[in-house]
């Protein structure tokens, strides 16, 4: 490690061991209290602070430390909370947090003063260490506060002789739940992260700026950085194929590696885990680590105790699967993930690249990722659209770019997932500013090119209610499915959906096709998602369900939280896979419960597999129908998983399936008296698409109340969305809503007919 600033490292050499024990161990061992060397100035103490704001700020600090991969044990905070009064609380908080500090900033005088901790401070080569900064603020200042150092100056444009001395990097953590400015409380603590370029002893001048202008105080401090070493991952999937995996690395203090706060792609800062391919590595300093490896919800996580001790080390992980649906031709996918926006950053790059998203998918064993370009970074991300799977795809892992209408165009009336586009932007422009404001017009454009379309995050706008359908008291189903509360249609989910579903629009060859192919499920309120779906199915509309995550908006935890599994007869290709969403040869799942091979058999031998052909089993007369599926569920606690047979939205039979992960056949026999849709579900984990059983050639007209509910939805949707339509599309919007009104009114009459 370089020496810089004209002060000899030898001056500090004699304090190495003691210093490491004081500060370096502070975040590692909370039981140890610091021992300051004689002659070292103690931190200024604050005698009393109002208890509530100090404890609230300390709680936020602990949360922020957690985001940095550091942690404060709850027991330590509880001790502070148990203190009796303001003075005791202040003393307890300082006793707990002072040992974790790099320095104290004393703002009691006219100029700030930096009081350094006893050194040398423990750092990590090529890694980040998290420390606190104590701020004593009796004047109640609310300025911005920051630490800096001449040794932390950037290398670009540095003089040759300066390069060696610029070994340090400093980052203040001031994002929420912290703030960039001081709160004004007499005592608070800030978080600072320090990065060391090389191993060994070094020193730096730590400077403090309060408010605007140059630093006004500083102190020389000694550091010592422990060496890090490459840790290479050897990852194999059955049978001995090199693979990618999800890897979470923590140390004894719960600190996450690599530090989240300083990650750039391919490692995402908002995730605790990283994803590594076989042969790739991270650098870790000497120490003990807990490494948890897995590959998506179809695998069993493995936890490995890792010791790094002075040399490179390998970690071997063999993926263990409790199920592999792809072996039976069921290919997983997530039709709604993003490479930009929400939790992603817009700088230094505008989102992340296709290879970064493929890494996420492969690490979760998600076979198909539909990466949707939307409002943020649209004009950058649009370059990745090719109308086919991206070149980074590694079959059977496919990544394809398409569009979510979000942040532009018809987004106010409900976001739309547009999959398998051939052109990503409508005529009339090359960006996002000229799109139709009526969702149905967007769908007309998309369906003309053969896209597969459906609303995103469906329950958004359906969880507030404006009333209840008259005459439906006591008619709600178990678990409020279905229910007859009228949603406010005041959000961006399946809102205009209720209007668009009855429409047919020209397909690629001009033949009318349904305007809406599917409804998205698995990422928003399951009751609201399923309720609107059940009602339109009860009206006879054959909309299918698909599974999504809306990563990293609804969740940044991982891709494939919500999934759709599509059955293919041959190898995986995107066009056939997405066609399986449209046709419903698929089930939705969170990956822990699988409802495969759903099929129906008539007494005379006729059989229909869900999603094959029209998914319709035609009976001449009422009959007992046999419904079969292959079910597997894994409950880590070993509990049973209920599977229900649903007819026209209401459960009619139930089986408790062991949650041991084994695949088992399940069979239900159900008499079908009139045309109905039938599905299997295990709410909220999984749901099949429906099989349509018709009796005597009659269409499904399951419920007049459902038709009335849909009609009420159209009225409510018009109230909330009318203003979102541009004047030039208002006539088309009125026409579309009127068409839907007439359709639901007709269906209501047909439901009531004998």
């Amino acid at each position: 490690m370089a020496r810089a600033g004209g002060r000899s490292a030898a001056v500090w050499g004699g304090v190495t061991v003691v210093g490491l024990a004081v500060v370096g161990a502070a975040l590692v061992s909370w039981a140890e209290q610091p021992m300051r060397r004689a002659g070292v100035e103690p931190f200024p103490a604050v005698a009393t602070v109002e208890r509530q704001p100090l404890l609230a700020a300390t709680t936020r600090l602990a949360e922020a430390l957690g985001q940095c991969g550091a942690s404060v044990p709850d027991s330590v905070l509880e001790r502070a909370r148990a203190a009796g009064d303001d003075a005791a609380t202040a003393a307890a908080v300082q006793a707990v947090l002072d040992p974790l500090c790099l320095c104290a900033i004393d703002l009691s005088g006219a100029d700030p003063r930096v009081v350094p901790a006893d050194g040398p401070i423990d750092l990590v080569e090529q890694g980040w260490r998290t420390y606190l900064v104590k701020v004593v603020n009796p004047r109640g200042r609310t300025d911005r506060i920051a630490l800096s150092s001449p040794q932390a100056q950037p290398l670009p444009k540095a003089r040759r002789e300066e390069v060696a001395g610029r070994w340090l990097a400093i980052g203040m953590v001031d994002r929420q739940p912290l703030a960039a400015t001081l709160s004004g409380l007499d005592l608070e603590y800030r978080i600072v992260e320090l990065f060391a370029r090389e191993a060994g002893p070094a020193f730096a001048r730590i400077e403090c700026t309060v408010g605007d202008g140059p630093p006004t105080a500083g102190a020389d401090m000694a550091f010592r950085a422990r060496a890090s070493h490459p840790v290479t991952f050897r990852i194999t999937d059955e049978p001995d194929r090199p693979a990618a995996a999800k890897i979470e690395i923590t140390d004894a203090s719960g600190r996450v590696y690599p530090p989240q706060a300083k990650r750039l792609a391919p490692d995402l800062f908002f995730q605790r885990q990283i994803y590594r391919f076989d042969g790739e590595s991270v650098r870790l300093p000497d120490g003990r680590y807990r490494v948890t490896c897995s590959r998506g919800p179809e695998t069993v996580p493995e936890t490995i105790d890792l010791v790094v001790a002075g040399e490179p080390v390998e970690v071997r992980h063999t993926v263990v699967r409790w199920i592999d649906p792809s072996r039976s031709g069921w290919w997983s996918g997530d039709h709604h993930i993003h490479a930009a926006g929400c939790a992603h950053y817009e700088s230094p790059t505008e989102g992340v690249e296709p290879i970064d998203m493929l890494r996420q998918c492969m690490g979760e064993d998600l076979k198909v990722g539909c990466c949707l370009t939307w409002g943020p970074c649209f004009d950058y991300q649009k370059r990745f659209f090719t109308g086919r799977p991206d070149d980074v795809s590694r079959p059977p892992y496919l990544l394809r770019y398409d569009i979510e209408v979000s942040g532009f165009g018809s987004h106010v009336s409900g976001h739309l997932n547009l999959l398998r586009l051939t052109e990503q932007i409508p005529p009339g422009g090359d960006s996002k500013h000229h799109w139709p404001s009526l969702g149905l017009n967007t769908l007309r454009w998309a369906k003309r090119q053969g896209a597969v379309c459906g609303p995103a995050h469906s329950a958004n706008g359906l969880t507030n209610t404006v009333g209840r359908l008259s005459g439906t008291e006591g008619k709600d189903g178990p678990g409020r499915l279905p229910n007859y509360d009228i949603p406010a249609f005041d959000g961006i989910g399946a809102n205009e959906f209720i209007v668009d579903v009855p429409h047919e629009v020209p397909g690629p060859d001009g033949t009318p096709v349904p305007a809406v192919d599917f409804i998205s499920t698995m990422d928003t309120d399951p009751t609201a998602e399923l309720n609107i779906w059940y009602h339109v199915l009860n009206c006879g509309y054959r909309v299918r369900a698909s599974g999504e995550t809306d990563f990293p908006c609804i969740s940044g935890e991982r891709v494939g939280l919500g999934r759709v599994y599509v059955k293919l007869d041959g190898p995986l290709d995107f066009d056939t896979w997405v066609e399986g969403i449209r046709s419903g040869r698929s089930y939705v799942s969170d990956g822990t419960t699988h409802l495969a091979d759903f099929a129906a058999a008539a007494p005379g031998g006729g059989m229909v597999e869900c999603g094959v052909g029209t998914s319709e089993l035609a009976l001449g007369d009422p009959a007992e129908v046999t419904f079969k599926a292959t079910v597997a569920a894994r409950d880590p606690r070993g509990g049973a998983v209920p599977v229900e047979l649903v007819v026209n939205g209401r459960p009619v039979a139930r089986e408790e399936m062991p949650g041991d992960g084994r695949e088992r056949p399940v069979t239900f026999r159900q008499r079908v008296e009139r045309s109905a849709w039938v599905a299997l579900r295990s709410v909220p984990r999984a749901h099949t698409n429906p099989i349509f059983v018709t009796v005597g050639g009659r269409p499904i007209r399951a419920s007049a109340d459902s038709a009335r509910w849909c009609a009420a939805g159209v009225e409510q949707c018009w109230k909330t969305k009318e203003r979102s339509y541009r004047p030039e599309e208002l006539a088309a919007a009125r026409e579309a809503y009127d068409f839907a009104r007439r359709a639901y009114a007709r269906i209501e009459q047909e439901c009531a007919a004998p």
Partner: protein
Amino acid sequence: MGAFMHRRRLAIIVMVAACGAPAIAGAQSPCGEPPGQPDEPVRHAAERLLALADALGGGVADEAFRTRVGRARSVDALAAAAEHLVTLRIHVNPESRVKLRVVHPVGDLVVGRPRPLLVAIVNEAGVTAPLSLSCRDRSLGAARPADFCRVTLRDDGLSAPRLGGAALEWKLADITVAAPGRWEVGLEADVGQGTQDLGFRSTADVLLRGVRGTGGEGGD
């Protein structure tokens, strides 16, 4: 921030350019606002903004403010005029994720007396769901409703919790502290289930000071 902020930047650039241009008597206001009547939606927004500013009290709706609002020909110009009055800024992104910022200090609060705050809402999603504000106390660990503080959105002829769907609108919230002393309160905003922002940017933590009123005001 998307298209709205882009438009807003453009508007500011236009205004700066106009202010820097040679003045032509009778053709333009000193601030570069074009002459003539504002569009109807802008006029309505201006009237509403003036009424909200009046409701804030304290003489904030002074002549200078009224003049700026009166000259505004765009919602962006109105936003600039009202900027110094806004305490809370809420941003609803296209995915309905809510972000809350305290842009000006709340200051001291008389115990028991509601203090009106002007809330500016940038609504990129165009949602029309009710906006919810609440107070959280983190001092005991997991956030829980604060018993020392209350914040409510006005629900009267002037302001209502339900959003109108406009790209920018203002609402009034009342904040009340129940006891004297300093308190840290976590203000939290959402527009319905699941709209709290990832990374809890939908919360803002504020240090409040409750002071006793004089002459029987408030109470604790």
